[in-house]
């Protein structure tokens, strides 16, 4: 290859950026994505899968003990009645935001680079929402009446309170989970058909064929399909913004100093995108290596994601500052005390972990070297997710642990069951993700193919056309569009 990956990256504004490296033809994209699923299970996959299932079984034990014994097994007590449970909920639901952002918002803005990562990010979203849904489900204590959260006719003649943000949350998160699943599945149909058509065994043919619904790739089908995809993207965009806004209202609508603030909705949404991109990065760094997809998920994609993390991380940092300013400017002594207590009280250690992970460390992404260095990106993605977990911990626990009267002050310490639930939720997440990469095409081939230059029947504007002589050395002779006008 004449140009290196770094050289291509150095010239992003000279017309159409090259999103997919090695100038592949359509068939090699199919192969690159489908072969890892068809090969014998690699050892590397087991190395991730077995520890994940081990963690998942910890979740099983922890949740069973919780159901048996009650939420007293957690470190919760007066005055801290919400801590790791809700922290984990907000943490996971936040991670679940990047998938829809990548698939819906970047789709509406015609950011074609999303095609390489959107499938995995959407899958990640669904698994993160599953992890998130566990916590409000189990933290209610009497889980056998958890169905009271839904407006179901019952013999008591009672209904849930629709004027409460906690109920808005039930609707927001369950609708978000459903719509994310639909969006992901619609995107999967053509690729499931691809797996069906490649299948060598009858079992595979039936399994993929069943879920491919008999897709024939016909233009009359694509016609409605593209319309549906566009509409779903347009629906998911306000939805994704609404979900974390509503999650933030769980706090903002209360009258507690530290929670009762109007900046919460945008601040939570920015934080959600920030942490979600970090998790996408963690997963994609591993996956592209394990499944040899370096030419499809390129450094350019990481470069773009790092820029988004720099922006959203700085927005989060700005929100931290605004909160402090507002607390001081409001003249409310309780509000100002809460914030001084956050930065200098017993939980100051957590506050400063949050600030250093979320605000200070992402500033390395001002440098292109950092944005295109896999080790730095990987380490940063983990630091950011630690920081974002601590953000939710700081918001929830420090606002609660010192009540209005000093007689009602306390200090929350997690028990081993708090830790087990958090670790266990990671087990669930990684188990699901391992199963996903093993059985489902993790790159949306029908979308990646559309960003190849030869996919455009009208010819490619810009420097792509000039480089077609160079490109046609590699493919199977059908690469550059001929007679393009």
């Amino acid at each position: 290859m004449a140009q290196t990956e770094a050289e291509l990256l150095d010239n992003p504004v000279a017309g159409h950026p090259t999103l997919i490296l090695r100038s592949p033809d359509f068939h090699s994209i199919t192969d690159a994505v489908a072969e890892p699923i068809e090969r014998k299970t690699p050892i590397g996959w087991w190395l991730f899968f077995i520890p994940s299932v081990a963690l998942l079984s910890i979740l099983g034990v922890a949740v069973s003990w919780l159901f048996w014994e009650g939420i007293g097994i957690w470190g919760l007590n007066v005055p801290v009645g919400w801590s790791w449970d809700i922290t984990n909920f907000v943490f996971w639901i936040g991670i679940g935001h990047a998938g829809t952002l990548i698939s819906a918002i970047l789709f509406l803005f015609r950011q074609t680079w999303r095609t390489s990562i959107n499938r995995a990010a959407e899958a990640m979203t669904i698994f993160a929402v599953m992890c998130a849904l566990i916590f409000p489900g189990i933290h209610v204590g009497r889980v056998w009446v958890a169905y009271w959260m839904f407006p179901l006719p019952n013999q008591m003649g009672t209904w849930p309170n629709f004027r409460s943000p906690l109920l808005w949350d039930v609707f927001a998160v369950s609708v978000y989970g459903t719509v994310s699943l639909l969006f992901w599945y619609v995107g999967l149909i053509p690729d499931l058909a691809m797996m069906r058509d490649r299948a060598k065994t009858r079992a595979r043919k039936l399994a993929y064929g069943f879920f491919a619904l008999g897709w024939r790739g016909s233009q009359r089908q694509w016609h409605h399909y593209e319309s549906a995809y566009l509409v779903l993207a347009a629906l998911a965009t306000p939805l994704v913004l609404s979900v974390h806004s509503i999650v933030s209202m769980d706090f903002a609508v209360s009258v507690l100093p530290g929670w009762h603030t109007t900046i919460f909705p945008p601040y939570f949404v920015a934080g959600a995108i920030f942490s979600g991109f970090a998790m996408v990065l963690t997963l994609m760094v591993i996956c592209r290596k394990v499944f040899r997809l370096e030419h499809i998920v390129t450094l350019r994609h990481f470069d773009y994601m790092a820029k988004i993390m720099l922006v959203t991380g700085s927005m989060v940092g700005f929100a931290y500052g605004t909160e402090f300013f507002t607390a001081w400017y409001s003249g409310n002594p309780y509000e100002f005390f809460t914030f001084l207590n956050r930065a200098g009280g017993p939980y100051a250690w957590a506050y400063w972990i949050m600030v250093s992970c979320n605000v200070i460390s992402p500033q390395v992404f001002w440098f292109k070297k950092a944005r295109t260095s896999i080790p730095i990106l990987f380490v940063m993605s983990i630091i950011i997710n630690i920081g974002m977990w601590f953000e939710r911990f700081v918001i929830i626990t420090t606002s609660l642990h010192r009540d209005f009267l000093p007689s009602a002050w306390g200090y929350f310490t997690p028990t081993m069951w708090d830790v087990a639930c958090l670790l266990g939720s990671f087990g669930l997440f990684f188990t699901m993700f391992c199963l996903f990469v093993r059985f489902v095409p993790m790159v949306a081939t029908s979308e990646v193919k559309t960003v190849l230059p030869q996919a455009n029947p009208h010819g490619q504007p810009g420097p792509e056309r000039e480089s077609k002589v160079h490109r046609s050395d590699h493919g199977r002779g059908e690469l550059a569009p001929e007679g393009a006008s």
Partner: protein
Amino acid sequence: MPFLVPQLPKGPNYGILAEFATPTDLYHACERVRDAGFTRWDAHTPFPVHGLSRAMGLRRSPLPWIVLGMGLTGAALGFVLQWWVHATAQPLVISGKPFFAWPAMIPVTFELGVLFAALGAVFGMLGLNRLPMHHHPLFRSKVFERVTDDAFFISIESWDPRFDPTATGKLLESLGARSVELLESE
């Protein structure tokens, strides 16, 4: 009602399947097939080819109207449910809020609107596309297996008024088809 119309041609032949090498070839061939006045035909591609709907002369998809209808239904249902619960079925004073506190009802109204609209988009799309449909004469063709990989096809069905087993095949060959195949009905 499109759902009541039979979906496959009767008779021994399903139609003709022609393979094209590139999206560009397919695009221009579609323009010619459209201009020749065929109505019961289709193009098959591994990915949505930009502008191919226009090259085939397809009308706009009615799907957005289904979605709009479903979305408004969902939102109305959500709003009426909340009004009914709090203002009529179980009027309880909670934190001093009015029974019919409509601003507090917007989030759930919005969420249910989005939920119904999304269901309308997905199931409306499947309905318009007549999916699931796991058996189809096209799947009998060996080359058609590559339709989800890297092959581009035009299929013209035998019940098209202009269909003729030899002349239509010749037309497709003259448009640059790599191979032309006559498919039997199931």
